[in-house]
């Protein structure tokens, strides 16, 4: 049996956290929720998630800045980051921050699950390739 994939969800809106959690759990993912994405930087290597869903404007926290730090950090740079936001510039922000993708709010549950699956799959393949080339 594979371990369930761990997904980190950061949003300052509790309802949206609940909804995304319900959607992801219904598909067997393990979900870690946070209203403050800063927590990610306190994670031990073995506790790091396999994918991050994150809002852009969060109370006191700028998702763009967090994404930039994640992508610069060796430990976290390979974790796919998807922005989930109602920001109308979401596509451009995703590109600027070198995030891996975005989901515009309000979102379709189907689309969210599909994107999560796609990015987990792509990141797993990249890891396998890395391992083969290292061996």
């Amino acid at each position, binding site marked *: 049996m594979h371990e369930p994939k761990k997904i980190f969800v950061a949003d300052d*809106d509790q*309802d*949206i956290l609940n*909804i*995304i959690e*319900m*959607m992801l759990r*219904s598909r067997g993912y393990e979900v870690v929720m946070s209203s403050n994405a800063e927590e990610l930087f306190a994670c031990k290597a073995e506790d790091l998630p396999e994918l991050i869903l994150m809002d852009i*404007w969060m109370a006191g926290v700028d998702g763009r800045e967090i994404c930039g730090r994640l992508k610069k950090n060796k430990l976290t740079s390979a974790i796919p980051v998807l922005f989930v936001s*109602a*920001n*109308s*510039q979401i*596509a*451009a922000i995703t*590109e600027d921050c070198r995030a891996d993708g975005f989901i*515009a*709010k*309000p*979102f*379709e*549950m189907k689309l969210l699950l599909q994107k999560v699956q796609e990015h987990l799959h792509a990141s797993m393949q990249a890891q396998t390739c890395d391992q083969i080339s290292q061996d």
Partner: protein
Amino acid sequence: MIKGDKSYNDLLTRINELETKLDESNEIIESIRRGEVDAFIVQNNGTNEIYTLRSADKAFRLFIEKMNQGAVTIGDNGIVLYANTSFAKMVDVPLERVIGQVFLGLIPEAQRQPVSQLIAAAWRDKESRGEITIPGKEGGELPVALYLNQLEIDGGVALGIIASDMSLQKEAQEQKREMEKKDEFITIASHELKTPVTSIKGYIQVLQFNFQQQGNTHAAELLGKVDAQINKLTALISELLDARRIENGQLPLHFDRFDFSALLHEIVEETGRLLPQRLVVEDTTEGVQLFGDRNKLGQVITNIIDNAGKYSPPSSKIIVQAKAEQNILALYVKDQGIGIPRDQQQKIFERFFRVKGKKENTYAGLGLGLYISAEIIFRHQGRIGVESEEGKGSTFYFQLPVIRGENLSASA
């Protein structure tokens, strides 16, 4: 031979005279080249004839004389050597009383300190710049930018000062700030409106999923209708934002390669929920890749299909036909609705336009959908149009070039 000797000496003298004249001429030409000569005075039959030079130098002088900026040259003693009319007007002193004056004396007392600092800085660093405020028309204030440059003239040094009236720039900046404020408001308003909609839509989808799992298809179907209405609300919020952005010339598009057919089927599924059994799809574009903004083109398709549903009888069919021929992809949406009078067919792509007729009040909408659609298609180098006959129906269509990603920059 004596005669010959004399003429030899005569010739030598003549040659010497000519050489001196040639040297003089060369010197004059050199002076003209260096811009040191403004005019020649030629004595002719006891009268002086003045010949001024129509050189590039004169063109520059005229240019400086006529320009809107104030131009002043001051000597190292602070006295104005030259000023143009614009500067005289700016300080409200007749031009003939500006030249020869102490420059600082022309500047309002309150500004003398910063201006003298600028002058000192320009002498020290060769150039300086700053901004001052001088009394303007009708008791107002005139913001003026000063650019000071050290110049070498006639073997000495002087300061060239350009004074620009900044009031127009300030006004433009003010307008831009105002526009940005409005734009920021719309952006925040849109974000704040979409946030609760996201929660409502999210809970509904979770409920719908749960009902489906439990086999309660009726409840799931009803929630599907709620969800479709929420999508309409979202579309209205986006329309307001987009229309505002188009007005400001900054509708952001995000270009990427995508499969058109997959997009069409997504939209048909979504719009079809509010138009059950009415959409007939004929799609032969399978595998056709477009380079464009997938979301925005989806918005155009949604808009055209929604319109077809809105303006046609409840159970009538709507034909959605997509085909690709010779690098052009075309989508046609044909309804059997009220149609559009010929004289209004071009106007429907204008902002806030809604078809005028007896029943106009029964159709909801902001009149922004087609305006935005036309802009989106236009920005993709495409065409959008309508063929319609009143009482029989309309066919809305758009055509898009099937292009390779390399041919179009992402900022297009």
